[in-house]
């Protein structure tokens, strides 16, 4: 008799424990079997917990919510989308896709894209160049709107339907000849990381605002730290000959009042005294406050030096924040971030290179309706909130930087809003269209040669100007 009384309570407790994630489903099965429950009942329990787990994946439940006014007119249709590369983001994306399907009745086939952005672009160009209709929507890098505009379905109406204020600079970047190539999904910007403990030791109370202040601090911290740690560096950044250097160098140039590489009308504007002065300053860092090897560093090389506690300052992307705060990090709670420093002359301003990803719909798609609706869903304020909380992705909507849940999960987001509203500088990808990579390649090659001392800065920039003029004449 006691058996029949206690069994239901035990079963419900077991179910509750599984659903809240205190025990695994395998553990639940073992205990259920030990209680002598029937196979049928265990099967039902597995089904119940399985459904709720696969919908949320994380037992505590993600904050995913669908926008209220999603269109119901595409019920029964199927779309194929290419989203993030395999990694921790996949379960979140699958949960989001399922929520969209459940709400609209549209079947979504999700595929992971390649990890390398260059490979991803080559893949997209293959099927878009062939006019293939089998992929309806895909995520695209912030520098691709110009390259992919010729294949894009205009998403202006879809973005408006979300009724949110997206960052103007990103929307401008994504608009080519009046067509919105992609709705901003999440963003990225260059940041200055600094060691709060060492700055305090050096008597500085806040992050340096100008490059000159940063250099002085880096020099003095480096000198005092080197007695104990001969490998200590003042400043690390990305100096290898690749796309990352284009971002770093554009920040130096723009923040010094040196304008951009190519302006909005595709006129070459890189050859000016303020830009040359900025590059000369960077050249002096190499072998000074920065290690000589910095001209071969990419993001992870700089983070390697920084996170081992061997640098006072680092220029890098927001992803390093969460990693630096990990339990096994040597610099946990010893660092903070701020906007990238600026120059001192006329037109000097904070400039953080804009990164991030957009949702694009192919114009060759046979289902542009549901595909655009899906793009609108992923980029909606509701879904971006969850993306920020659960995956630390930076929202593209200003209001979300004031959201208390978002800020609780990512305290450093509060510092980033002004960066995206004002200081973020975009690479000239919309102006140079499908020739952006030619422009960027010529630029980072010249800057890398400056940094490694393979010629006078003014000469190399003069040659760069000629090369760029040849490229833009093809536009």
């Amino acid at each position, binding site marked *: 008799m006691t058996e029949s009384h206690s069994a239901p309570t035990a079963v419900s407790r077991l179910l509750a424990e599984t659903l809240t994630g205190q025990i695994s489903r395998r553990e639940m099965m073992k205990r259920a079997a030990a209680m002598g429950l029937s196979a049928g009942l265990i099967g039902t329990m597995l089904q119940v917990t399985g459904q709720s787990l696969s919908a949320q994946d994380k037992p505590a439940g993600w904050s995913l919510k669908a926008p209220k006014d999603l269109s119901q007119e595409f019920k029964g249709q199927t779309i194929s989308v290419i989203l993030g590369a395999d990694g921790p983001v996949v379960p979140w994306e699958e949960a989001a896709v399922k929520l969209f399907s459940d709400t609209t009745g549209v079947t979504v086939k999700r595929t992971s894209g390649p990890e390398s952005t260059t490979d991803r672009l080559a893949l997209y160009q293959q099927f878009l160049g062939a006019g293939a209709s089998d992929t309806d929507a895909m995520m695209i890098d912030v520098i691709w709107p110009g390259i992919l505009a010729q294949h894009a379905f205009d998403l202006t109406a879809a973005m408006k339907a979300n009724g949110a204020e997206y960052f103007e600079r990103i929307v401008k970047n994504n608009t080519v000849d009046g067509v919105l190539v992609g709705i901003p999904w999440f963003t990225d910007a260059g940041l200055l990381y600094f060691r709060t403990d060492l700055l305090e030791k050096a008597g500085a109370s806040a992050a340096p605002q100008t490059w000159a202040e940063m250099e002085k601090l880096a020099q003095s911290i480096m000198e005092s730290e080197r007695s104990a740690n001969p490998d200590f560096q003042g400043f690390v950044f990305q100096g290898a000959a690749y796309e990352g250097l284009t971002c770093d160098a554009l920040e130096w140039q723009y923040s010094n009042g040196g304008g951009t590489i190519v302006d909005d009308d595709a006129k070459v504007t890189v050859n000016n005294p303020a830009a040359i002065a900025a590059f000369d300053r960077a050249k002096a860092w190499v072998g000074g406050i920065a290690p000589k*090897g910095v001209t071969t560093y990419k993001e992870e090389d700089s983070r390697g030096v920084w996170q081992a506690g061997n640098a006072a300052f680092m220029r890098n992307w927001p992803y390093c924040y969460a990693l630096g705060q990990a339990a096994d990090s040597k610099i946990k709670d010893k660092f903070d971030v701020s906007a990238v420093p600026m120059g001192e002359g006329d037109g000097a301003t904070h400039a953080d290179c804009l990164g991030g990803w957009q949702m694009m719909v192919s114009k060759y798609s046979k289902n542009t309706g549901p595909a655009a609706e899906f793009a609108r869903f992923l980029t909606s304020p509701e879904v971006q909130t969850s993306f920020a909380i659960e995956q630390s992705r930076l929202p593209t909507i200003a209001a979300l930087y004031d959201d208390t849940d978002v800020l609780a999960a990512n305290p450093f987001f509060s510092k980033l809003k002004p960066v995206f509203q004002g200081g973020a500088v975009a690479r000239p990808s919309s102006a140079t269209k499908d020739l952006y990579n030619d422009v960027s390649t010529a630029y*980072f090659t010249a800057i890398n040669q400056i940094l490694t001392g*393979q010629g006078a800065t003014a000469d190399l920039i003069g040659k760069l100007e000629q090369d760029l003029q040849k490229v833009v004449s093809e536009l």
Partner: protein
Amino acid sequence: MEVGAEVAPVPVPTLVKRRPWSPPDTAVGRRREKFAWLLILPSLLIVLVVAVYPLVNTFYLSFTNKRLGSTREVRNVGLENYANLFTDPLWISSIVNTLKFTFFSVGFETVLGMIIALTINSNFRGRGLVRTSMLVPWAIPTVVSATMWQWMYHDVFGVVNDILVNRLHLLDQKVAWLATPSLALPAIIAVDVWKTTPFMALLLLAGLQVIPSDVFEASTVDGASKWQQFWQITLPLLRPALVVALIFRTMDAFRVFDVIFVMKNYAPETMSVAVYTRQKLIDLQRLGAGSAAAVVIFLIILAFVVMYTRLVRVEEG
């Protein structure tokens, strides 16, 4: 089958000399020739699809301005891509870098490989173990070993600097091996030598092992020194194996991509012709210009092969 039945009355081979390409004289001979063609047809088809077609297509593309995934109009630009190529200082320096890389890496690998092959060809205890362990660098994928060496060359944490500066005191201060333009290519060549010498040694060892030992015994009786034996006997008899090894390595070295791309990306001071071509084809989506570069690489390698095979033929008399 029928064919089998006809094989039986094979005529006694005639001594009549035939010109190499004339058709067989007898009906049986003609039928056998047809059958032979039938047998090689599948391989011919495969070669046609995977080698000839891409090659012809690359030649064709090199005369156009085609771009990957572009809706721009494709037109014939004649020799413009080639003209641009040879007026591009980056391409010229890529060729120079590649020639330097090929000459020095193959040179060092041959000399070191020869020394190693001669050593492990002699009898000593633990020879099997040495032969196996020698192959370890060759067995590591290049992308992995290049990344590994990149860390070893690191200017701040690298073990190379640590040994030279802190342990052996050969240098006063740490050197940024890969970041110093004049040192980067030699550093990369050193990695290739480290990796590929075992392969060279193995090819030469195979050549050494077919040289009959009685030749050496006879020369020892005649009073030849070890040095004389090497120059008068070993080297001439090893020549065919050496030439084959050199063909393989030169072709391989001229196409070098992975070790340079992993360590230095698109930095001009180490860019090889293969890295240049990838940049044009993939990053810049210029199928026309990239194909022109690929065609030039193909022609240079072809010239190498023709040169070497001539050498072999001269050897064979």
